[in-house]
């Protein structure tokens, strides 16, 4: 197996994993605050269409990404108002958000089917990007890939090392206690929900401006659900979710390579492999059930009302 094969494979894995990283890390914060938002898929697809429409209209990639984040944020705002202020059921509202996002994006995207634009440029640092092997691997991605890694680091640092992160976790662990010592559960939760929405929107934007720069209905093809599963199996740890996303992307790509090389394993088995392997690995590294329970936000999915 030569290195010529490996470098492009790794580059492909990175693009496959990045949208999952954004969505999963955003959802980690949301769930850490005790809110279960099942609308990730809907927020991602809205991010994808908003970013694509903006890219076509303005040609600006920065604006496109911002539009994606904005669209995800707006959709999560609906969810937040319904669940945090109006006490609606989080599971049902999240599911409705996904269905709503898929439908609305199709409606908005109707006139964008078949349009194209150049796509997000790869970083090209003269000298550095030309170093064999290391050059493309470290310096050869688009800006969003670096942003995704930075955002994981920031979220991990925020949740574990800052006062703000402590508040988010406190609200997720025991909202009554947090409330009784004077913190606004609703505001903190709204903040987490909006952050999660924006991140899912960026994940969707990555799909439509970098991964496959085009718009087709339903183009997220279930990635929002995978991101949701990653959060749980990574026991709500940002770096573990990051690792899970790369594992999932990695096995998806490697199995395609294996097929192209003529490895005689059934294609259906290979297609199933990313799911099984990701679940297995994350379950094994999170197998200490006492610790896992400690990690799970105790108030996850429970609505809070100050009178209660």
């Amino acid at each position: 197996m030569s290195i010529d094969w490996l470098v492009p494979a790794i580059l492909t894995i990175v693009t496959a994993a990045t949208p999952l990283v954004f969505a999963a890390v955003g959802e980690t914060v949301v769930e850490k605050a005790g809110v279960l938002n099942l609308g990730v898929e809907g927020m991602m697809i809205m991010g994808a269409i908003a970013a694509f429409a903006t890219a076509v209209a303005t040609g600006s990639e920065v604006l496109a990404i911002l539009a994606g984040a904005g669209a995800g944020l707006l959709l999560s705002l609906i969810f937040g108002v319904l669940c945090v202020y109006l006490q609606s059921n989080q599971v049902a509202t999240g599911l409705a958000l996904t269905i709503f996002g898929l439908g609305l994006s199709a409606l908005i995207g109707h006139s964008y089917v078949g349009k194209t634009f150049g796509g997000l440029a790869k970083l090209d640092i003269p000298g550095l990007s030309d170093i064999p092997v290391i050059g493309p691997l470290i310096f050869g991605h688009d800006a969003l890939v670096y942003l995704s890694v930075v955002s994981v680091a920031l979220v991990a640092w925020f949740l574990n090392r800052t006062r703000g992160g402590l508040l988010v976790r406190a609200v997720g662990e025991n909202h009554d206690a947090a409330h009784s010592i004077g913190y606004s559960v609703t505001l903190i939760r709204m903040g987490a929900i909006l952050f999660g929405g924006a991140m899912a929107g960026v994940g969707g934007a990555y799909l439509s401006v970098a991964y496959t720069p085009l718009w087709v209905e339903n183009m997220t093809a279930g990635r929002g659900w995978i991101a949701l599963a990653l959060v749980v199996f990574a026991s709500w740890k940002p770096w573990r979710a990051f690792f899970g996303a790369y594992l999932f992307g990695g096995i998806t790509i490697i199995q395609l390579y294996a097929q192209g090389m003529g490895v005689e394993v059934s294609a259906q088995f290979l297609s199933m492999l990313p799911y099984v392997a990701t679940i297995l690995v994350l379950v094994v590294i999170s197998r200490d059930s006492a610790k896992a329970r400690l990690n799970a936000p105790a108030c996850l999915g429970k609505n809070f009302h100050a009178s209660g």
Partner: protein
Amino acid sequence: MHLKSKLAGAAAAAVLAFGISSAAQAQLKIGFVYVGPIGDHGWSYEHNQGRLAIEKALGDKVTTSYVEKVPEGADAQRVITKLASSGHGLIFTTSFGYMNPTLRAAKRFPKVKFEHATGFKRAANMSTYSARFYEGRYVVGKIVGNMTKSNTIGYIASFPIPEVIRGINATYLAAKSVNPDVKIKIVWVSTWFDPGKEADAAKTLIDQGADVIMQHTDSPAPVQVAEQRGVWAVGQASDMTAFGPKAHLTSIIDNWAPYYIARAKAVLDGTWKSTDTWDGFKPGMVEMADYNKAIPERVVALAKATRAGIEAGTIHPFTGEIKDQSGKVVVPKGKTADDGMLAGMNFYVQGIEGSIPK
């Protein structure tokens, strides 16, 4: 189901409630059931183009409606039954998995005419229709066999069903006939539609030496990847030139319009009969997108001659002697494969490497 269809339903209900639709009595109501979104730029998109063509051709003699993204299963039954019971005289169900639900609805609503795409079960009021896409694949094979420099065709396949395997075999036989060294590298992605995964498969194949990418999946993502990487690509279902103006050699286009218009007219005339239609180039059910200007004239001429030969019946893509991978003769010399064999094709022809996923 979909927001738009719900809105349409609500609008229809409002119209009925106000009794504006008195003129609708004489009109033929035609319903369509799609498995994907009409914005997929692929399979469902082309069926919807066929629906629009009916409206254009027959004007106010017909009204049409559609329901998109209908899963194959219990939902399909509900949607088809609802269309049949709401005054539709002709219903097109456009995915293989709608076969049994359509048959059940056909028994329940004997006065309604049903048309099911790609299936094999029929009734007095239920026809089947499909297109011979392998004819298009055969023409494409002649082109890609000439265009490849690495002698490696990358092929993104969806599911190991006869339709897909027939396409692979037709491509390979044609490519081999013009380029004896050609190899075909097949990657199964186990989906009809996932732009990301299709793009990944295209990248994989290019990394492994393919310089032509073909696909039996529905999104234009592989064409786009080919454009970025500077290799050739062949589109599927719709004209995909826009996604790779340099890379795009041609596309095999599904053109349902002539059939749909003819069947709608037949219902209006009262001449509709249950039939089994499997058409190719000849009545225009399969079309080719414009050939890329970069294809040498000689190759374009060959492609055109091949197409003309298929239309005239002088060329059949599966003409003997054809052997399967084990070396067994499946089509004897001088014979052509019959429709039964084509419809149930479950083997690779000799020369293709790898095995069909079981």
